[in-house]
C-alpha cells in the first residue's frame, strides 16, 4: 500500500510538472518567433500525450463525450482500492500489475525528462 501511495504521488508530481512546463511555454509563446511557435506547439502536443498516459482525458473539443482510457494515476488508485478491500496480503497479480504500471510510468517520466532537457530548455533559452 505504501509503495502504491508513493507511486501515485510520483505520478501526480510529474503531472504537476507537465502543467508547469505547459504554463511556461504558453506564457512565453507570444515572444517566440513563428518557427519557435511551431516547435512549441509540437512540444505541447507531446506533453499532452504524456499527460494523457498519466491521467484520463475526458474527451476532446471535437468529441467531448468520447472518453479516453484511464491514466496511470487512476489505475494505481484503483489498484490501491483492490488491495485494501480485504484484510489480506496482496495477491501475486496485484504485485505484477503494480510492477507493470510502475514500468509504464518510468517510460513516461523518461519521455518527459527528455522533452524538457532536449527540447523545452533549448526552446526557452532563445
Amino acid at each position, binding site marked *: 500500500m505504501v509503495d502504491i501511495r508513493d507511486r501515485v504521488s510520483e505520478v501526480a508530481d510529474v503531472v504537476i510538472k507537465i502543467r508547469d512546463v505547459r504554463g511556461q511555454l504558453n506564457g512565453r509563446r507570444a515572444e517566440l518567433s513563428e518557427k519557435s511557435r511551431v516547435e512549441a506547439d509540437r512540444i505541447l502536443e507531446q506533453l499532452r500525450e504524456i499527460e494523457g498516459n498519466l491521467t484520463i482525458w475526458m474527451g476532446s473539443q471535437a*468529441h467531448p*463525450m*468520447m472518453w479516453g*482510457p484511464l491514466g496511470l494515476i487512476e489505475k494505481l488508485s484503483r489498484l490501491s482500492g483492490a488491495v485494501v478491500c480485504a*484484510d489480506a496480503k496482496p495477491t501475486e*497479480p496485484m504485485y505484477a500489475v503494480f510492477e*507493470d504500471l510502475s514500468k509504464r510510468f518510468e517510460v513516461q517520466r523518461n519521455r518527459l525528462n527528455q522533452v524538457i532537457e532536449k527540447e523545452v530548455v533549448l526552446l526557452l533559452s532563445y
Partner: protein
Amino acid sequence: MKHNTKVLVLLAVMMAFLVGTDSRALGMGKVVLTDYPSLDASFLSALDWRFVGPFRGGRVLAVAGYPDDPLLYYFGAAHGGVWKSTDAGRHWRNVSDGFFKFPAVGALDVSLSDPKVIFAGTGEGLPRQFISPGDGVYKSTDGGETWTNVGLRETRHISRLRIHPTNPDIVYVAAMGDMFGPNPERGVYRTTDGGKTWKRILYKDESTGAVDLSIDPTNPKVIIASLNHHVTYPWDEESGGPSTGLFKTTDGGDSWTDITRNPGMPEGLIGKICVAISPARPNRVYAFIEADKGEGGIYRSDDGGSTWQRMHQDPGKMEIPNSYNHITADPQDPDVVYIQPISGFWKSTDGGRTFKLQPTENWDHHALWIDPNDPNRMIDGGAAVTLNGGESWSSLENQPTADLLSLAVDDQEPYWIYASQNDNSHIAIPSRTDDRSIEWVHYLLIPAGEGGQTAVKPDGSVVYACDRARMFRFDRETGQSQDISVWPEVEFGTAVEDVKYRFYYSFPVLLSPHDPRVLYTAAQYVFRSTNEGISWDQISSDLTRNRREVMGSISGGPISSNASSLFHVSLIRAIAESPLQEGELWVGTDDSTVQVSRDGGSSWLDVSPPDLPEWTTITAIEVSPHQRGTVYISGERHRVSDRTPYLYKTTDYGNTWQRITHGIRKNDFSWLTSGIGYRKWPT
C-alpha cells in the same frame, strides 16, 4: 449434486430428450442433423417449480399509474412482466404471467379516459449487449388482469407507448426494432382501433429506431417523437447519424415536420433524444440531447419546438446516453422537469437551468410517471412509489424481478443458491428455511458487483463472485471479499486491442468437479489457480480467432464512447471439465470456436463444429458424466441479429458433431444445463 437437479432440472430434461436418440457420426469435422422424438408434455408437467426469490427489484423501463386512484400503480420489468400494486407500492402482484410469451417489458401506459385499458410494449427498449426481445404489443381491458397480444410482433424492442388521453383506441408506439441489425420494423406506429390494425406513421430507414414520444394532453393531435440511428455489434455500438432527429406532428401523426435543425438546436451530429412536452404549458418542450462537439445537454423550447435554447450542460450527465437520459416534465409546474441520466434522478425547478440530485430507492433510473393531478405522486423505475414528491419512496425489496446473470448452488442442507444481479450485486439465498418463507432476513449479500458468473465451494464457505473483469473471493465466515482478479488493472475506456486479458462482462469461473481447490477462469486464455486465487497460471495460448480487425477503436460512437467489457470480443465464454476425466477441459468462445484439452491444459485442439457461423457465442458446454467423449454445446448469435438456436452433440471428443435442434422453433432461446450431479468432491 442432487441439488443441481432440484434447481436446474427443466432444461436438462429437455436436453435428455433431445440427445437420447441415434447419432450418425460422419467423417472428421462433419455435422449431421438428427431427428428426435417429440417431447412428451406429461414429462414436463411432472416437474414442480417452487418460487425461492430473491425479492430484490430489478431493471424497470416502464411505469404507470392512474390519476383518480392514488394507490394504483403498474410497472413493467425488463425481464419479469407487468406488475400491479393497489397499495402504493407496498405489495406487488404479477399480472402478465400466462399471457405474455415474452416477459420483457419496454413500455407501458394506462388510459387516462378508461383506467381498465392498459397497453404494454414488449422487448427492452434501451440498447445493450444482453437484452431481451419481445413480441409486440399486449392490451388489457380489465385493469391488467388479462392480456391479449394485439400485434407489432416483429418490432422486438419497444421503447415508448402512449395512449391518446381521451380515446383509448388510439395508441402510439415507438419501436426501436432489432437493435443488432437492419430491419424494417422500426419507427413510430399508430392504431386507431384499439390495436386491431397498426400503421407505421414515422420511419427513416432500417437502422433507425424510434426512441421517445410525447403527446400534448391539451391537444392530443400534437405529438413530438424522436428517432435515432442505432446499431449494436458484438464489438461496438453506433448511436447517432444523419437519420437521427426530432419530429413534430399537429394532425395526430398523419404528417410530420422535421424540427431537428430548428434554430437553437445542435448544429453537429445528434444522437439519442428524449423529449417531454410540458402538460402545464404545452408550448414548452424539453429535450435531453446527445450531441457531438460539446453541444449535448438539456434543451428547451417555449414555442412548441420552433426555436430552442440549451439550458444545461454537464458532461457527467451525458455518459452512456443510450441506457439513460430520460426526461419528464412536471404536469402542473412548467419550470419543473426531471431527468434520469447515469448519475441519478435529478430535479430542476427553474426550467431546466439547474438540477438538484434527488434521494431515491433505486440507483439505475430508466422511467418515471407523475400523476397529472398530484405531482407529489410518482413512480420511478426500480420500481418505487412516492406520495410526497420524492421525500420518501416505497421499497424495492418487495418485488422479485431481479435480472440474474448467474446461478450456482452448494451442497449444504438445505442447499443455498447464489446469483449475480444486473444493476446490483451478487446474492445468496437458502433454498428453504424453517420460517414461513424465504425472506430478506435469510439472504446473504455478497459484496461484488452486478455482472458476472458465480462459483461456490460445496460447503458454501467460499464464493467466487465475478464482476465485469474482476473476481472476488468472498469468505462467508469472515465476511471478507478479496479481489483475486487474474489481472487487477482497471482497463475501462481502453480499445480492446490494448486490453491485456479480454475478460467478458460475465466471464466464466469454474471449480473443478474433481477438486474444489482448483479454480478455472478464462479471458482469451485459460487460467488455473490452486491457491484460491492468490496466484494464477495461464494454461493455454489464445484459444479464440483473435479478431483484431474489430478491436482497434474504443467502442461506442460516433458521439459517445461506451467502452466496457461488454464490448470485449474474441474471448472465452464457457468452460467445463469432464466429470469422468480430471484435466479434460473444454472451452467455447464468442467467435465460433470450441477447444478441448485432455492433458490439463498442456495442449489444446480446435474441435469447433465446422458449420458454426461467424460470431457464434458458445454459451454453455456440458460434458457427459456417463459417456467419455460425449459433450453438448449451445450457441447463439443475437448480437448479429440471428435468433437461430445452435445446439450440438459429439460422442467422439469433437471429431464429429450432430446438430440437435430439430423440433426447436427458429427463434426460441436455447441453453444447456445439467440436471445430473457429477461432482466428485469429498464429503
